């Protein structure tokens, strides 16, 4: 057989293995990232009336920089692919939309504009670009982590803004999101009527979001570091442990 034919065959098989690696990694990261996200920040993701300007921009970014940081640690350092964060967040968005559309909307008939998820794609692209340009994970933690926290609210604002419009409903002032919440009762709805901005938060009014994003960015930086390290040294470890049977006899006697 000609060398070129052998070469083509080898390359075709290599490409197939590449695809298996990419597809399986994508699917299992959806599984892990989505179950993590829905159980640490899910309520803010499920309901438009939970997407407030105080806690949502804090909780969501700091808990969702986790998988992107760990994935970047391997995809960048071992595969030179500057897509770790975007890869994770795209998978998360896919997992969320599958359920919001098929189940929240299709099965139990909540309107889609009540249950659409947040997006991390813009912040993830920025996080990946910072890592690609600097090639340094500490700088990515410091600069990328800050941007991650800062960018979350503005990049979701276009979707959220209409629901924060004030309306008067039965003599009370509330947001459009709150009215939607009244219309579509869910389990334990009374406990969901949250007055988010209380005490001094309320008197500082418009300043709340900026402070929340600033705080969120700080914690995102702090979260990035352990998750990068876990990705690099634990989940990305290539360690083998010998079984008892495979351990040499001399070693067993000590």
């Amino acid at each position, binding site marked *: 057989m000609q060398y070129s034919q*052998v*070469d083509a*065959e*080898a390359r*075709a*098989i290599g490409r*197939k*293995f590449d695809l*298996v*690696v990419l*597809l*399986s*990694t994508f*699917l*299992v*990261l*959806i*599984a*892990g*990232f*989505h*179950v*993590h996200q*829905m*159980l*640490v*920040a*899910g*309520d803010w993701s*499920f309901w438009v009336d939970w997407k407030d300007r105080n806690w949502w921009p804090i909780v969501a970014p700091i808990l969702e920089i986790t*998988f992107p940081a760990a*994935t970047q640690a*391997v*995809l960048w350092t*071992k595969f030179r692919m500057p897509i770790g964060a975007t890869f994770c967040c795209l998978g998360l968005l896919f*997992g*969320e939309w*599958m*359920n919001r559309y098929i*189940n*929240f909307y299709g*099965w*139990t008939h909540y309107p889609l504009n009540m249950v659409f998820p947040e997006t991390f794609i813009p912040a993830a692209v920025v996080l990946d670009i910072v890592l690609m340009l600097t090639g340094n994970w500490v700088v990515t933690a410091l600069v990328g982590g800050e941007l991650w926290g800062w960018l979350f609210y503005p990049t979701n604002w276009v979707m959220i803004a209409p629901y924060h419009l004030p309306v008067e409903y039965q003599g009370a002032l509330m947001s459009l999101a709150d009215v939607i919440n009244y219309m579509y009762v*869910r*389990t*334990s709805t009374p*406990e*969901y009527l949250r007055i988010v901005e209380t005490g001094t938060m309320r008197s500082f009014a418009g300043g709340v979001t900026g402070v929340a994003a600033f705080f969120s960015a700080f914690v995102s930086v702090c979260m990035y570091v352990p998750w990068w390290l876990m*990705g690099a040294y634990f*989940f*990305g*470890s*290539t*360690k*083998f*442990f*010998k*079984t008892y*049977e*495979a351990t040499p006899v001399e070693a067993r006697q000590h």
Partner: protein
Amino acid sequence: MAQTQTTATAVARPPITAFSWKSAGIAIGALVVFDVLINVYERLYAFSKGLDYTSADYESYWMGMLFAELVLEAVTAAGLWGWLWMTRDRALDRLSPAEELKRYWALGLFVLTYTYAAYAGASYFTEQDGTWHQTVIRDTDFTPSHVIEFYQSYPIYIIFGVGSLVYAMTRLPQFAKAFSLPYVILVGSPAMIFPNVGLNEFGHTRWFMEELFVAPLHWGFVTFGWGALAILGTWLQICPRVLSLINHIYYGKPIQSPAEVMKNPQSSVDPAACAACAL
């Protein structure tokens, strides 16, 4: 280090048809069809027959399904894992490079099927359970969405995950005599989500705390879900060996023998050894 020295013409190549997507296509296709049918079943009988645990309908439509699936899962798991073990390769040190490469392809498809099942269980059906609880109050731990999520979708991915690990341990030199840390986490950590249901159900039964999905009671699921990230280390172990096999079979480069890999699997993922035989 002793290495098997050969030339390109001396190494048998596996037929290109050996690297077919067919088996994964059938397995994942069957799972997708099954999941669609399950969704149809839920739409037909969850609200109509699944709201009163004490009713006769509940007994036949939901508890019947629960017992049937638990039995089927136990039988399937024992059958598949047992068969993989009984048919294990007892002469792995004489494994030919072509056969080893074919087995890595089969393992890749096995892992791919596992990851689909894990997606369906941990992502799709788990958030679907949120949809269910936000719509109805359950009167039993065996509420319809749990019969599907906990006792069906989770065991299915465990069957494929453990199955793929047993396949690797019984048929590939890298995994035959040593435990791979990332691979065991990739399979074992998501598998622990199923036992964690015990904690979850006891907590919900005792404290009746359905209104918050982010309740700390749920964080056991979260921690075990992190194990999904270990697929990164798993591929970092597998890729260098697959690359060495391709380089050996198609380009005649030297390669570690199966016996050497079995004796010291760590050496097969050594970046230096890998770089020496890069394409």
